[in-house]
């Protein structure tokens, strides 16, 4: 996004950028011809990219069906069986008595609490650590010790220490905390020193610089962190549910179906998890702040 708008300006005929500024920028927005159709934003490729996506999707299903025919495994259902199981999952109660909505809501509520808690702690902490260097240095050993431990490794401890449902909230918290914290920290540190200099020469004091330059300057990274954190949260919750937490949940649905050998339903569950994960991360990315040149 950044590079395309910059090259847009530079590519103006004759290299002049002064008198034709904003208006030309607007009028040029439509074309964006770089001379290289495979480079950059919407060109001729976009018009045909729908076709490519369609072809690629079809090929995926063909390959899947071929794999089913060749492998002939009882554990690998074909697209048609999975579609049927998906309809079944969406329309009927499973044999342990839950509807799919109930599973989804259980998973989502665990994620909501763990993720919200992580965001509420990690964003301010990341901002503070980025702004006050000694705090960053102080926290660094903790972060470096805790981060390489996969959140799922905490499950045995979480199950006995917190119990359901706090165990899952704790796991989600751990999974989403680090990407949010570290991206926020990076965001603060990547604010252009020149902008801070500019702020100071304009009379801004420390607090004003923080709220008016550092925080807005870091927003792009913060939203990236929040998006990544949600992705990690989603991945950890399914695994955590499979490994032990109690109650409903998509991971539990998956595991139950596995235990009774309904692999078409397992795959249907995977589809639901994938679609929801996509929707969740897309939902956060609407928040993505437009980077600027």
């Amino acid at each position, binding site marked *: 996004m950044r590079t395309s*708008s910059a090259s847009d*300006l530079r590519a103006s005929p004759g*290299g*002049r*950028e*002064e*008198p*034709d*500024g*904003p208006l030309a*920028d*607007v009028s040029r927005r439509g074309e964006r011809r770089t001379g290289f159709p495979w480079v950059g934003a919407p060109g001729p490729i976009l018009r045909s990219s729908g076709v490519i996506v369609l072809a690629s999707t079809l090929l995926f299903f063909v390959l899947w069906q071929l794999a089913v025919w060749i492998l002939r495994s009882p554990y690998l259902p074909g697209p048609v069986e999975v579609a049927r199981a998906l309809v079944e999952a969406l329309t009927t109660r499973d044999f342990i008595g839950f509807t799919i909505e109930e599973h989804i809501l259980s998973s989502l509520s665990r994620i909501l609490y763990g993720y919200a808690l992580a965001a509420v702690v990690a964003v301010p902490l990341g901002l503070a650590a980025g702004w006050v260097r000694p705090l960053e240095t102080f926290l660094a050993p903790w972060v470096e010790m805790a981060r390489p431990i996969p959140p799922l490794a905490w499950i045995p401890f979480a199950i006995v220490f917190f119990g359901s449902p706090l165990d899952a909230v704790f796991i989600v918290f751990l999974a989403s905390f680090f990407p949010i914290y570290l991206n926020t920290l990076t965001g603060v540190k990547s604010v*252009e*020193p*020149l*902008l801070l*200099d*500019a*702020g*100071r*020469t*304009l*009379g*801004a*004091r420390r607090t*004003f610089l923080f709220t*008016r*330059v550092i925080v*807005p*300057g870091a*927003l792009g990274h913060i939203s990236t962190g929040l998006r990544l954190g949600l992705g990690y949260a989603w991945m950890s919750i399914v695994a955590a549910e499979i490994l032990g937490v109690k109650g409903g949940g998509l991971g539990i649905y998956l595991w139950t179906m596995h235990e009774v050998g309904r692999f078409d339903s397992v795959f249907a569950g995977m589809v639901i998890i994938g679609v929801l994960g996509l929707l969740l991360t897309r939902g956060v990315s609407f928040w993505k*702040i437009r*980077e*600027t*040149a």
Partner: protein
Amino acid sequence: MASSSAPSPGSLRAVNLGVNFDGLEVLRDVSLEVRPGEFVVVVGPTGCGKTTLLRAIAGLTHPSAGGVWMDGHRVTEPGPERGLVFQEYALFPWLTVSQNIAFGLEARGIQGHSKSGQVSKYLAMVGLNGFEDYRPRQLSGGMKQRVAIARALVNAPEVLLMDEPFGSLDAQSRCDMQTELLRVWDQTHPTIVFVTHSVEEAVYLADRVIVFSARPGRILADLPIRLPRLRVRTGPEFNALRAEVMALIESPENGSRGEAHASDARALGRGRPG
């Protein structure tokens, strides 16, 4: 000693100023006096420490020796009375043109009517009426620099420091901006210290041209330009002055310019084009 001079707003005095970065001597023994309302242009080879001089006056860089006084007070930190215009514009990309210009007022706690009045006054002064709600990325280089100038002027600075402000503009907009700047200076009359490596720009704008040596930057010459404004760039006096300044820059005293550049950019912690 410096504080004994009669303080009139906008006077600057650098006394035996020296700046080192990690053992690299960037400025050596620079002494300079600027009268209130004077337009001083510093020229010199790329990497000669001109930017460092401005940053020291702005209070962003701490001198290793000597110091800078403004109106008899020693400069220890940045302040709104010394505005700085950067070559890279340094506009806040998330703010609109108006919000960028209002930044300094808000930083000083000025709100409401007096804020919006000031913003539109300086917006008009730099000719940006109608662009209030544009973001910096939608503007051309010349317009960005107009915003940066308005943003600095809104604080009514007694001193305006300009660091190669037109360095990345094409030749035509550069000439236009120079003339515009003189017009704005005529209306507000701050003291201006303007850094450039363009000799023509220096002779066109300045009351006084200060010629800097290659690093470590020292003052080689201090040359008054007494031509009436607006100056004709093709006139014989103009060309004679230009040749004189050029000769000073290229004098044998002023060697090893090429290698000075890269290491100075590193020392400043940021590369700059050109």
